[in-house]
């Protein structure tokens, strides 16, 4: 295990932020800490980096107990949401900082910084100052700076949170590819379930300072342990007191075993996908169908249809603990 967090508790004043949190991160993995804001994910990341001290519990990094170790001795790379670029230093100076602090020879330092700038595609920007870079470029510089010291683990705190949607998507794919190249154990914090599913190979869902579920993106999406995780990881709708993914619903014009009668209230066409909104016993529900299905069933507002969850669909009682 690259990181073993066990039974960590942390409170700010009287407010508990982490409650008995235990997380294992395996070497070389790309793990997402996913959860709503205020759920404790950033605090957990800062505890791993040593920027916050846990009240109780321990943090082991690469087999060494780091619980009481100062951040400068942990050899972790940390990337901040707002980049934390050293404003008075050039891009080169920023990336070289960790190596200068470690008193690496000049030649080796220059070579390493050059390699890293190539890795993050900033080689032409070495002499610029952070203020002359775009947000995406600044974040790539921050990543190169963190990687320069060859950290045992790389920690990213909402790394794409301050960027606009387009750049965000690009950097996501790029981070995934970078991880496949560099193989450094990486943990990143996000509140965006799509980002977590797309980038990570392990997802840890945190809410109210507790680990709710951990597993592969597929596992967490398909087998959520409770309604909260199910809602947080993707769209859900409520059929007869059960939560189900809207794409796991079968629509028919005639009653089928286990189906429920519904009246179509609205049809929304979103490209290839059709969103069928309906009323079941006075409750709103919706199903995601393909354009073909919608045409075949001749769906219109006011049509009576029958819905039932597909055989393989995951169902969760709404009020499960």
């Amino acid at each position, binding site marked *: 295990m690259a990181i073993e967090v066990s039974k960590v508790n942390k409170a700010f004043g009287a407010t508990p932020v982490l409650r008995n949190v235990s997380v294992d991160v395996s070497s070389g993995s790309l793990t997402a800490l996913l959860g709503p804001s205020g759920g404790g994910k950033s605090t957990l990341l800062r505890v791993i*980096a*040593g*920027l916050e001290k846990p009240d109780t519990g321990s943090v082991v990094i690469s087999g060494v107990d780091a619980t009481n170790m*100062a*951040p*400068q*001795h*942990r*050899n*972790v*790379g*940390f990337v*901040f949401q*707002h980049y*934390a*670029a*050293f*404003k*008075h230093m050039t891009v080169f100076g920023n990336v070289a*900082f*960790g190596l200068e*602090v*470690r008193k690496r020879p000049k030649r080796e330092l220059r070579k390493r910084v050059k390699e890293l700038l190539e890795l993050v595609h900033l080689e032409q920007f070495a002499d610029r100052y952070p203020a002359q870079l775009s947000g995406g470029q600044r974040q790539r510089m*921050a990543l190169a*700076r*963190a990687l*320069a*010291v060859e950290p045992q683990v790389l920690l990213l705190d909402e790394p794409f949170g301050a960027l606009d949607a387009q750049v965000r998507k690009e950097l996501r794919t790029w981070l995934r590819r970078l991880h496949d190249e560099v193989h450094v154990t990486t943990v990143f914090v996000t509140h965006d379930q799509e980002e977590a599913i797309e980038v990570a190979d392990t997802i840890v869902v945190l809410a109210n300072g507790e680990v709710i579920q951990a597993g592969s993106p597929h596992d967490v999406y398909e087998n959520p342990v409770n309604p909260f995780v199910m809602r947080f990881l993707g769209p859900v709708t409520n059929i007869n007191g059960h939560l189900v993914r809207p794409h796991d619903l079968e629509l028919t014009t005639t009653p089928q075993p286990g189906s429920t009668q519904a009246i179509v209230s609205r049809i929304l066409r979103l490209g290839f996908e059709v969103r069928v909104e309906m009323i079941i016993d006075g409750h709103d529900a919706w199903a995601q169908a393909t354009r073909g299905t919608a045409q075949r069933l001749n769906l219109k507002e006011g049509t009576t249809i029958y819905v039932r969850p597909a055989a393989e669909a995951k169902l969760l009682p709404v009020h499960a603990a």
Partner: protein
Amino acid sequence: MARHGLRIAALTYLFFLLVLPVALIMWRTFEHGLAPFVEALTSPSALHAFKVTLIVAAWAVVANTIFGVGVAILLVRHEFPGKRLLNALIDLPLAVSPVVVGLALILVYGRFAPAGGWLEDIGIQVIFSIPGMVLATIFVSLPLVVRAVAPVLEELGDEQEQASLTLGANRWVTFRRITLPGIRSALTYGVILCLARALGEYGAVAVVSGRLVDETQTITLFVEERFQNFDQQAAFAAATALAMIAVVTLLVTKLVTPKDAS
């Protein structure tokens, strides 16, 4: 018309309060040419007064720079009980009259006070000597560096410092390479203000120095003493020198401040 009226009023006000007195001092200083000015300022007493002023100001600036940066970091970066009290205490010297400061220092460090008596026993005379004058000057210029640095430190945030720590730099390297460059303009501004205040201080220093000519006489005390003794030439010359130092300081501050905005 109203605009002109306002301008004329403002100019008249400044003319009688600022321009006329300063101009008259300059005129009286240089009415017989440069030679009497130079002669008055190079007399042994004047030179000694300059030396005392520089020594006192230098110590006060060094002390308040170290203390000011330290306290600013304490106030902005740390949470501790009594923080609000400390924050309020920092501004106390601005509210208390310098004469009160001087008298208070005599009460603590005078020969017949416990602390002063003990220091006297181990051979350190505080009151009526340089240490007391340094203390008084430090006291009156205490808030200037703190108040210049603290808001900039606040705005700078601590993320750059944290990034530096995770990159392996210890606290001292982080301070020297990240924090200090971030507050450099503000610190320079604070130091210059502190220097100007220290050079021009009169009240507190007058009380604790004992005004001993050629011993504890600073340049401000020299101006006062020469004037009382009808040596107007020397008084005006020293006053002009002080005014010129103030103008230069002001110009330097103006050159330094715009950088903070960028």
